[in-house]
């Protein structure tokens, strides 16, 4: 009797339900593992520099913002998120609105610090309009004067989770 080389058998038909559920799981995992990145453009709308000092701390090795897929970019044209600090001064209103117009959709606006939330201590001044929300729609507010870096980071990460 001649020995025939073994041959692979023809495959059984795929179970369409399994395929579909696997594809869905892959897409979800990809979104979670690969799609978790937000480019943030900071816009100063008249801040005292306090919020900037704490935002700069996010860059240091202890908070290391970039490990979460969050990074600062220099232009609103490259941004997913506009991060606004400071009470909205009348002298910066048009700059903020131009930055918002220049940010591609979909976009989010985060108001960081008591001043950006509602004008803070500068409420009622002739030179200040109030919070960021008076000029552009705000998605997330992070209060504090200034908010500690850990708090800003928690806020930004929740934005990341919500959009993953």
């Amino acid at each position: 009797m001649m020995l025939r080389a073994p041959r692979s058998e023809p495959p059984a038909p795929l179970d369409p339900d399994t395929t579909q559920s696997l594809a869905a799981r892959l897409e979800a995992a990809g979104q979670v593992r690969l799609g978790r990145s937000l480019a943030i453009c900071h816009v100063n709308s008249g801040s005292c520099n306090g919020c900037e000092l704490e935002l700069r701390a996010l860059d240091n090795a202890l908070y290391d913002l970039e490990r979460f897929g969050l990074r600062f970019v220099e232009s609103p044209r490259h941004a997913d998120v506009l991060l606004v600090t400071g009470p909205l001064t009348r002298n910066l209103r048009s700059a903020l609105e131009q930055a918002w117009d220049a940010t591609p959709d979909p976009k989010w606006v985060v108001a960081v610090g008591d001043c950006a939330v509602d004008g803070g201590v500068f409420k009622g001044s002739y030179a200040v309009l109030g919070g960021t929300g008076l000029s552009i729609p705000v998605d997330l507010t992070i209060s504090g004067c200034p908010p500690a870096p850990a708090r800003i980071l928690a806020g930004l990460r929740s934005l990341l989770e919500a959009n993953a």
Partner: protein
Amino acid sequence: MTRTTDIIRTAEAELCRPWLRHMLSAADWAAFAGAAATESWTLLAQWADTVQVHALFLNSDALSIVPVSTPVDSGRYPALSPYFAGAAWYERMIRDLWGHSAEGGTDGRPWLDHGTWPLARPLASRPEPRTIADPLQLGELDDPSEAMILPIGPIWDRLGEPAHLRLTLDGPAIRQAEALLGFAHKGTLTLMRGKSPRAAARFAARLSADATVAHSVAFAQATEAAMDVVAPPRAAALRIVMAEVERIAAHLDTLTEIGRLADAPALRTLCGVLRENVLRASDAAFGHRLMMDCVIPSGVAADIADGGPQLVLRALGSIASQLDALRRLHDGAALSARLARLGRAGGKLAASLAVGGVVGRASGRAFDARTVFSSGYGKLTPRLAVRTGGDAAARQHLRLFEVEESIRLVSAALDSLPEGPVSMTLPQVSGEGIGCAESVRGDIWHWLRLDHGQIAAVFPRDPGWALWPLAERVLENATADDAALIRASFALPASGMDL
């Protein structure tokens, strides 16, 4: 007897503690300015109230402070800018806020007022509702047809402050540089007016956050001078601790930023972590990472926490142990070559613009308010280092020197911390006073007038008033690619002078 003292001697004077403010007629005011310029005096600040214009002079030889005033006559007063180039921006600010015009001034354009406020001359006795919006005005170009213009800002400089810089380029070289500020104008002076010093201190603390302690100390000292009281010894010592901790953190922040811009990742990482340790120690010891609102008129808001001194000293100890490593990183071939001759500020220019702090001292101006005018430092005798190079490398070396010196001052102040209360009750009195503090960028001066315990008029002078005009001139010899690094090396602020 010199011409300046001659004019002062015959003038009437009002008490402006701890000095006398001399009232000069318009003719004497102009003559005094001319004489002061000839005798190499320095103009530290210029401001106004509803009826007078004031100027604060430093007699650089005698190291004495001379406040002078002149009445405003039908909206005008003689300009100081023909004698002191740095006065031009003050005069533009005075016109925008109070409506007084400087007669014979070198620049009559608006400064803080960008034409967006609902009223003009907000600090005048009767502000006017604005009828037409005036567009922003930038200066004339030398040769507009040939110029390539690079406009930068107000949204620029990653995580920085708003300012507009217009650079006129010839190839990569900057031919003309003009700064426009006022974007962060928040109407702070109006908000402070009519409040008690205790309530207004919150605004003084929010003029410029990396000098929040220094501004608060200058404001508190001005208040205490006006009331003729002195803060308790323990509060004075704690103010010094906070001011020096703030200086260390702010210098480390500048070093981090320069590490980022000059591609020195090791420096950036190390300084970033050391700064964070300092901020965490401040939080534990004083209750706020930046120590905002921790210094108040009458003393300090709260005593240092139990175990606070140890936490602060531990954070500073970790910096001290890394200082040699930081110096080695700095003197490495790449970074020292990048910073040498970069953004060189001439000594004469720095002195004529009254530039203080690291920038002034790196250009040979040996002035530090701590050694002369700030109370409490007496026994600690801060050491002053001066360089004459005037470039970014000289400024870096001074920053490292000052970090080391501030560590010594904090340890010494904590070692001999007097016992006792940290604040007191303030009397409801009238008076006028000037306070001063050396911030990370240079000397800060606060002037205020109290009317039965309420603020009638106030003006804070941020070091930015001197730094920006110098930066404009320095940029004019630089290349456009270096602009960001030069700005970081000057640590240019905005909010404090935007008021």
